[in-house]
């Protein structure tokens, strides 16, 4: 039986999971061996969290409840790290919040 983990987190960053936030998000996801997926609804569709093209296609704006799930080695750590990143507003300042 392989490990798995799942969590939901509210996107509070002004522009949502777009452009620069999605670069950081996918980079972090790629640092884990586990298979990681995201969705904007509990029943999917699920997108590969390591592909920026797919993550952008999820179209998750500010205020979205983002669902994150992972399977395999380090899945718990992967989900936790990604949730933290979203909660920290992707470590961004307001620069492009204003442009949005």
């Amino acid at each position, binding site marked *: 039986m392989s490990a798995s983990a799942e969590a939901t987190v*509210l996107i*509070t960053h*002004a*522009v*949502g999971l*777009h*452009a*620069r936030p*999605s*670069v950081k998000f*996918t*980079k972090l996801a790629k640092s884990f061996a586990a298979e990681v997926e995201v969705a904007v609804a509990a029943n999917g569709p699920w997108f*590969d969290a390591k*592909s*920026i*093209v*797919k993550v*952008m*296609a999820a*179209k998750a*704006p*500010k*205020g*979205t409840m983002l669902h994150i799930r992972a399977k395999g080695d380090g899945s718990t750590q992967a989900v936790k790290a990604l949730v933290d990143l979203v909660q920290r*507003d992707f470590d961004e*300042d*307001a*620069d*492009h*919040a*204003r*442009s*949005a």
Partner: protein
Amino acid sequence: MRIEGIPASPGYAEGPLFDLDQPPASYKAKASSDEEQAALVSAIGKAVGRLAALIETANGDAAGILEFHIAMLEDDALSGPALSAIGSGQPADAAWRAALDSEIASYETSDQDYFRARAADLRDIRDQVLRALSEDSEAATPPGAILYGDDIAPTRFLETDWSKGGGIALRRGSTASHVAMLARSRGVPMVVGLGDEGETRTGVALLDAERGAIVFSPSPAEIEAFRQSASTFADRQGAARTFLTEPAVTKAGTAVRVQVNIAYPSDVDGIEIESCDGVGLMRTEFLFGKTVPDEETQYRAYRNVLEWAGDKPVTIRTVDAGGDKPVPGFTVEETNPFLGLRGIRLSLKRRDIFRVQIRALLRAAIHGNLKVMFPMIATPEEYSQAAALFAEEQAALAAQGVAHRLPPLGIMVEVPSVALAPEAFADVAFFSIGSNDLTQYVMAAARDNAAVAHLNSVRNPAVLRLIAAVTAFGRERGIPVSLCGDAGGDPAAIPALLEAGLRDLSVAPAQLAMAKAAIADVAV
């Protein structure tokens, strides 16, 4: 021939037009699909290499955009569909174009501005690879040119030498695009939304990105008037910088309070609190973007701004949804939303939602100098009902032993009934004139309708008379009066506002310096 658009980055540019929509050089087909695939992979690699080289010289914002482009290009999910189309017989350039065009189409149909604006990034990514495929670099932009086209690629912006002036004029485009953001931070004049006028334009043009217009084939008189405006703009801008950190004072020595308007809590990150007298308007609609936010989310957002402001006042406006700002699950569909269930009318109708905001505000109030105002008040009953809800929630919090404070409660003056008979509101703590809505209601000209934009002037004598009357009433009764509409930051409107008696303006953060400079020039 003058065409009006929307200013995306203020400034003036005079120079030759450069056509952004020239077709790129053509691609030579290869002998086999394997070679076609190899050509595409190598072109993507080349595009990534060029972007990586650009990052070296780019600053924070620009580097972030380039990193995004690189991440997209390096993602196999982007090239996958093109590579398999090549496998079934398509040439590399057509396959790549088709794959990217379908991605672009999905961005263009999004209902969110921010996401739609990313279509320009995708087009840029597409064209960089097409350029690398055809191995023919595009014609370089002549220095000082006005780049004119449907839209502009961020890399085109970054590759252009702006040190010799120049500007950007777009038939479509968006003020929310990455290029618009870069243009504002670099001070490159830019106008969007000029629309199709069906003609190819060449020669010299004048770009007025302060008002939002372009003049093709200008007459000598137009050129002279333009240069005058451009030079006063440059003077004002240069002079303004020295005003930013100083308190605002008129030529006659009258002090004027200048506060800022903010839309997102994170807006304050880029503002020095020392440069302003507080927050004259904090909108709360942002919290209601897609869903109705819970109490904790609101409390945290309000508290952050209050703590940032220290002992300076922060005036938070209760949610002004409706009108042109719909919120799913909260606002209602109406045929005439500007005259419908919006602002306080909606909050009083949906008290469950309003009470959540009230509790968050009462709790946040202990963290700073909070004032709360209600939007779209038309009658004194609306104010007393809203104030009564504050009293009820305050009592409930007290009973639960939750720390809180009742902030001063004021109203927006934007419905003419209030401006005409302010004496009915003598018990409010303060007035804040919402000049955008007041003007549209006095002039019966919708704010979002370009066809009647010429009527929407705060400097119309009828609007100014109402502003003066409210200000005079406030002074007589000791009720503070401020103004938080766009007019407050408009150097052209500031003299009239000060002459109408106002001494407290709230402006967009980017307008702080220019507003203070304009105030210093007024002799009241």
